[in-house]
């Protein structure tokens, strides 16, 4: 499937921005939803300034965008936050901010796309999860949990929508060289353009995908590390 009309939430930076770039290169009509368009540059896309925390506005924004696009083939939810977190930090406002972007915003947006695709019986929905959602690690309790939510939620959507001919893809990128990871050593991280092209190659398929075989292997091992060991090692 070659998507001709796409909405990318969080398409103003990171993997989302690269997805937008590559889709427009292929000639797709793209609507980009985000909070800050400064990185977007000279792109012929529909720009919609919107904060995903404003869930009440979403149904109308979705309707306007699908109208302007003249339909919808691909929906990508790529908005996500991961604030820097100290090992001893238990900061509820910060945690709730993560939940509102990574979880509530995701649900509010993907429900719109899912309900449309359910009726239309065609389309592809991509959610950016993370290897970080595979286990609850010491460093990022709520970020990890928010991505685990995305995985399980989109698995359910897949089970609802696959039988309607709709493709639902959960992507689990590993560390990627974006703003989100700027305060870590980025030298060994995946380039966001590479991540985006791998993501776009998945269109039309069903399931959860890692973006490189090492991540898949690490993910597999990771998911099987017993709890007692998780409490002792530093990862």
């Amino acid at each position, binding site marked *: 499937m070659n998507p001709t009309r796409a909405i990318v939430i969080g398409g103003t930076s990171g993997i989302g921005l690269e997805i937008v770039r590559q889709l427009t290169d292929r000639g797709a009509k793209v609507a980009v939803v985000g909070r800050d368009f400064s990185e977007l540059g000279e792109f012929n896309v529909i720009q919609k300034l919107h904060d995903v925390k404003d869930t009440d506005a979403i149904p109308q924004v979705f*309707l306007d965008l*699908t109208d302007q696009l*003249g*339909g*919808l083939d691909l929906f990508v939810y790529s908005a996500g936050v991961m604030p820097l977190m100290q090992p001893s930090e238990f900061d509820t406002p910060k945690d709730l901010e993560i939940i509102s972007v990574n979880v509530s915003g995701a649900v509010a947006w993907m429900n719109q796309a899912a*309900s*449309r695709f359910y*009726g*239309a019986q065609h389309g592809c929905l991509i959610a950016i999860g993370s290897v970080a959602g595979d286990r609850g690690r010491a460093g990022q309790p709520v970020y990890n949990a928010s991505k685990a939510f995305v995985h399980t939620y989109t698995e359910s959507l897949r089970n609802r929508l696959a039988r309607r001919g709709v493709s639902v893809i959960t992507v689990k990128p590993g560390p990627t060289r974006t703003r989100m990871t700027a305060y870590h050593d980025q030298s060994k991280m995946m380039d966001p353009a590479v991540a985006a092209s791998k993501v776009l190659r998945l269109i039309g398929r069903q399931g959860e995908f890692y973006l490189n075989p090492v991540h898949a292997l690490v993910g597999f091992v990771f998911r099987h590390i017993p709890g007692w060991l998780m409490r002792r090692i530093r990862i």
Partner: protein
Amino acid sequence: MPQQSQIEYFHGFGQSTGADAYVFAPETPEQILEVFELARSLGKSVSFAGARRSYGSPMMTSEGLVISLRNFDTIGPIEDDSVLVGGGVTLSQLWQAVAPLGYWPNVVSGTSKITVAGAIAMNIHGKNAFKLGNIGEHVSEISLVSPAQQGRDLDAIGSMGLFGAIVSARLDLQRIESASVSVTARAPRTWGEHLQLFDEFASQSDYMVSWVDLHHRAGRGLFHAAEYSNSGSPLTARQSRESPLFGVVPRDQAWLMLKALNNPALTKGLNAAKYLSGKILAGNKAHAQTLAEFNFLLDALPGWERAYANGLVQFQAFVPSERAESVFVELQDLQFRHRIVSSLGVLKKHRASPQVLPYAVYGYSLALDFGKTRGLELLCQEMAEAVIAGGGRFYLAKDSTLTADQYQRSLPDGAFAEFRQLKQKYDPENILQSIQSRHLGLT
């Protein structure tokens, strides 16, 4: 979008253009008006969909609101040889209700799966068009719900959903003594012979149709004429063929087999085989068929259109008698020149029938089926020029390739202006639109 709508993917019978739209299924005329109101507030357009059996896109509007009248499905009692039916009733439901009482709809199309509203909105014709004209001549009353007014109105005949919702209509019926027709077959060898047979049989027949082998230069084929018979099948609602094809293939899966067989060399071979077998069968003796079998031949293989992998395009030209043969030959030449030859050609005889944006003429129509391929659109546009030059017209139920300019040039003088006037009367805000009406410059 309000709760009662659901987004759906639409395509016409030819499966070539598709779009998503919000579908509403109102239950009362007031609810239809509410959808118009909603469209106004959202700045969207509205179109009506029946059974979506038109080949192109007259029943859909991309990202707009589509109204289905499937809930308007009542069939009233027969009074004075006519019956009041809801716009959402299908021809199949209609004939099954009236045949046991000794009646048959005056005009039916080659498939019974269409709705009464869709039939009136397109002003369909049957194999008896030479005799009874189009369905509009047998409709005595229409109740129409338009953005600007509501009431009884016959202007909706042939209005393609652009004037308002056809909520119900009163249709005249024929009395029949049996559910059979007596069919005579002939095997014309040339285009000229086809047309002669139509003229020869016109006075004594109730129905006439001819199949043409386009792969054959001279235009050989098979001609069928049928008359109502007063003996034969009893008047029942069961006349359809549900037995497996050749005793083994379930009929609703036969298209899979057709798909496997569908390639140019084979269609050529099948056309030849059909001609030869028909020629052998076409003795002078008439054979009996039920009305449903004779009229709805294509319904016997549900889903046959899916045999065309990339979708199906039909090109139907209506040409005045004097020019018919030469134009049809020219259409065939063009197909040979483009190396895209129709897999099925069907000829019918017509007479003019009044409606806004008329398509029927005193003459003949040739309907050509094509599997969608590269270069087909160009071929169709060149064929359209030949038809226009011959004084011919087009039927929008079958169209998906005409340009706005071609369509408008094909119309008789004044027809477009008259359409505009009526549009202004029923829908001055231009709420009712379809992908096709926009493409052809009607809305």
